[in-house]
């Protein structure tokens, strides 16, 4: 094989095919650049965390493992929560959102309330996604929203809540073993929904104890040590060493860099079935000036100072009043996105070094008990049987998490677009329009080649001038032709003929009608013309 030398490469580059290749390469490079720029704005590379499928200290793998251990199916949504609309049994489904790390791509939409096009979408989730989520809750589903400074605002708004978006410092309950970023949220009774409701532990099957004998209803009648199947989803409350069942309705939750709800939006509003349950202490401050420091002022309204507590940090929403109906939808909002990450949730694992070495290890906390309690409340029947539906599942929202690879992000984006266009009304409308235009285009533009057929055609015509014909019908022209005829017959030149006296001409013509025609200048009728022509025709022949 010949080795191509430099000049041949140069020649090739100058040749039309070479130029074409260069142009094509440049085109695709530009296209690639454009695409990556657009994709880059969507995919902001940052740390990958808070994923139920990651095994790092800042992921939620042990929470998911606990759920799976209890025999519950775990599922993920990688594209869009719009898919919640497709869930057949929301009653047996929990949707967990842990940290909403990024915004979404969506179209402007028509909103029914203001009857105008809504150009700006809510933060985090698109309006139709929020609709899908709240619909899900309405149909009996349970959602858990854990977020601090992310994009949970839009979703929380729909439930009448407002994330403040500022970090909370609690001078009383911060963890001195760790640092001020770690704040304890101590709740004496997690089921005191409102000041009037009293403790409603009976709404949770793990704590429901109608006869107040210290044994939960679902374990009534079980003699001896309950098996794990007896314990069902409440096995986390059973201490196998001491063989005791923990009936504590309170939780000591450890939060990391928490935020808090806005004071005005998270107030106790029982009419809305929105129950603020966990509060910071009086001595908690929100870093409203975002200086990263605690600035104590004289009052909350002081412009330069941070706002002072107490702030709601854990709010529970129930479709039914006081969460009485176990089949009604629930929503849990906590102002910390990382309260279920492995390093806090799985203190034993941290101790044993599963997640690597840490300088300080968190104390044991009730985060795990709280999380599994709410799973049990959602999926376990509260009729004393402790039965679990076969369709019970916990769905983790991974659609708003960074993916560990570019491929993964693209894959998710692809699904997002597809699901968005087949579920969001505005997008569906656009898509229908697009399909319609596509079909129109095909029908109008895409024509099959005509069948070949030989056409024999030699038909064309020569002249034919109606104006000329008219001219040849005039008396003057006829007169001229008659005179030429007379001249020809008598073999005279034009000059000789012109010089001829009238009497001579009359003699030559020798026809009174024609003589009269030559000398008389008047209008002739059609019949007269025809008669004259006939006469001229016969004239020469005599």
């Amino acid at each position, binding site marked *: 094989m010949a080795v191509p030398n430099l000049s041949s490469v140069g020649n090739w580059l100058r040749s039309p095919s070479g130029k074409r290749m260069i142009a094509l390469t440049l085109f695709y490079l530009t296209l690639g650049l454009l695409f990556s720029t657009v994709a880059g704005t969507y995919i902001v590379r940052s740390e990958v965390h808070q994923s139920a499928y990651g095994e790092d200290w800042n992921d939620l793998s042990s929470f998911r493992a606990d759920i799976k251990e209890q025999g519950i199916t775990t599922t993920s949504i990688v594209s869009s929560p719009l898919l919640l609309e*497709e869930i057949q049994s929301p009653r047996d489904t929990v949707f967990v959102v842990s940290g909403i790390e990024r915004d979404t791509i969506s179209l402007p939409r028509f909103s029914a309330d203001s009857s105008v096009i809504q150009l700006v979408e809510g933060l985090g989730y698109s309006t139709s996604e929020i609709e899908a989520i709240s619909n899900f809750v309405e149909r009996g589903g349970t959602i858990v929203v854990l977020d601090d400074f992310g994009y949970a605002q839009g979703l929380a708004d729909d439930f009448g809540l407002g994330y403040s978006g500022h970090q909370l410092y609690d001078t009383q309950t911060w963890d001195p073993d760790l640092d001020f970023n770690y704040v304890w949220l101590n709740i004496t009774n997690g089921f005191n929904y409102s000041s009037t409701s009293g403790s409603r532990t009976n709404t949770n099957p793990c704590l429901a104890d109608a006869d107040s004998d210290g044994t939960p209803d679902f374990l009534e009648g079980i003699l001896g040590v309950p098996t794990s199947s007896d314990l069902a989803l409440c096995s986390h409350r059973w201490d196998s060493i001491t063989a005791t069942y923990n009936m504590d309705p309170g939780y000591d939750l450890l939060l990391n860099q928490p935020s808090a709800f806005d004071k005005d939006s998270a107030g106790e509003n029982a009419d809305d079935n929105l129950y603020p349950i966990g509060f910071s202490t009086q001595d908690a401050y929100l870093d409203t000036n975002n200086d990263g420091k605690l600035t104590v002022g004289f009052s909350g309204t002081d412009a330069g100072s941070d706002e002072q507590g107490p702030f709601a940090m854990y709010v529970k929403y129930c479709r039914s009043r006081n969460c009485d109906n176990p089949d009604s939808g629930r929503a849990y909002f906590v102002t910390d996105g990382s309260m279920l990450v492995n390093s806090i949730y799985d203190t034993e694992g941290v101790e044993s070094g599963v997640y690597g070495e840490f300088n300080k290890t968190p104390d044991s906390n009730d985060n795990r008990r709280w999380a599994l309690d709410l799973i049990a409340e959602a999926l376990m029947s509260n009729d004393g049987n402790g039965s679990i539906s076969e369709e019970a599942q916990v769905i983790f929202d991974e659609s708003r998490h960074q993916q560990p690879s570019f491929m993964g992000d693209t894959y998710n984006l692809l699904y997002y677009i*597809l699901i968005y*266009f*087949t*579920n969001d009304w505005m997008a*569906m409308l656009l*898509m229908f329009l697009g*399909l319609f235009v*596509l*079909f129109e285009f*095909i*029908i109008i533009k*895409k*024509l*099959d*080649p005509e069948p*070949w*057929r*030989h*056409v*024999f*055609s*030699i*038909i*064309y*015509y*020569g*002249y*034919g001038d*109606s104006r*000329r*014909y*008219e001219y*040849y*019908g005039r008396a003057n*022209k*006829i007169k001229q*032709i*008659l005179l*030429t*005829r007379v001249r*020809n*017959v008598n*073999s005279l030149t034009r000059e000789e003929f012109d010089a001829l006296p009238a009497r001579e001409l009359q003699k030559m013509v020798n026809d009174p009608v024609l003589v009269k025609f030559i000398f008389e200048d008047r209008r002739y009728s*059609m019949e007269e*013309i*025809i008669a004259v*022509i006939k006469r*001229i*025709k016969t004239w020469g022949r005599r």
Partner: protein
Amino acid sequence: MWTRKASILGAGGVSLVLVGMMMSNFQMMVFGVAFVAFLAVNSWITGHGDIQVVRTLSADNLYKGDDLYVELEITNPSWRRTQQLEIYDNIPHEMKLRSGLNYMRVNLGPGETTRVRYVLRCPLRGHYSIGPISIRYRDSFNLFSQEMYVDHRSDLIVFPQVREIEEAMVRSRTPKMYTGATTLRTPGPGTEFFSLREYVPGDPFKIINWKAFARTGQLIVNEKCRDAVTDVFILVDSRDISRIGTVLKNPLEVGTVAAASLASYFIKRRDSVALAVYDERLSFLPPDTGDKQYFKILSSLAGVAPKGAMPLQAVTNALSSRFSRGSPVFIISALEGDGTTIPAIRDLAGRGHEVIILSPSSVDFERLVSRIPRTSYEVLKLERQNRLTALAGFGARVIDWMPDVELSQALLQVKMG
């Protein structure tokens, strides 16, 4: 290229999938996927058009109105099936399919050959070319089709018809003056020896008399005697105006037939025939005899097309030096729209030429295509009559040729001045 069906199938498939998703209807989705799969599977079996085509014609030259037999031999030399292949031989519109078809649908296997045979009738003289061969291949389900052509052309000339006019020429008064192939004692290309003369550069070597060269040391050439009696000049009017009438019946068309027939008649008599065709310019074939000249004349007549408006006098002036003395001149013209006709013919006749004017009656040809009012027609005829009479007055022999009169018949109607 995707056909309309494929485009609709593809777009329909994707739409069904999307709408199926919207409505959570699995049937639609399966339909959609199946449609797209149908396209995908079929895209594997597209055909090709790499075929070899050989066209054979029954003749390269033929006379107007004759039949031409065409055969296309199509071979698929590749290892692939062509799939459905449409083969279409492009033939000029002026030709008529007599039998067979210039089109075939085939599906040629590797190495397979097929033949398309058809017969064309050529009702119009002219220079034509058959080809190229258009090819369209597609798959069995008409989803993808591609067009191309094989640039294989065959040229052919359709001569004007040649009519038998010998009898007419014998019976009419016109040809009586030409008494046949009696040797005229003038030098020229011929067979009989005439004289010797000195070599002039440009003379062909084969006529050098080598014996005389050997004898004298000088280059001497044999001069032959011209065979023909006469140089017959045929002037054909191909001006734009000569197209009056239909495409098959107009002064030019019948004029070419007349010119071809006259040329054929005189060349058969071993006369020399010269042809001058004037349209927007003058094209002149110098007098010569023999088959080659005959072919040249026919070929040149095949190519004439009506255009331009060169006056006759310009023609006769240009040719005046070329006209052999006393030779007969045939002028084939409708004599329309040219004021110089009369002086030109008067000059020719004055110079001692026998002028025979064969004039197709353009008014009557015009009547074939447009409705002329009776009076106008009669007046037009009278005017034409005047013109012909005037020409006859200068000693030309004038033939007023009506459209439905045969050439031989017309030649008998010489009108003397």
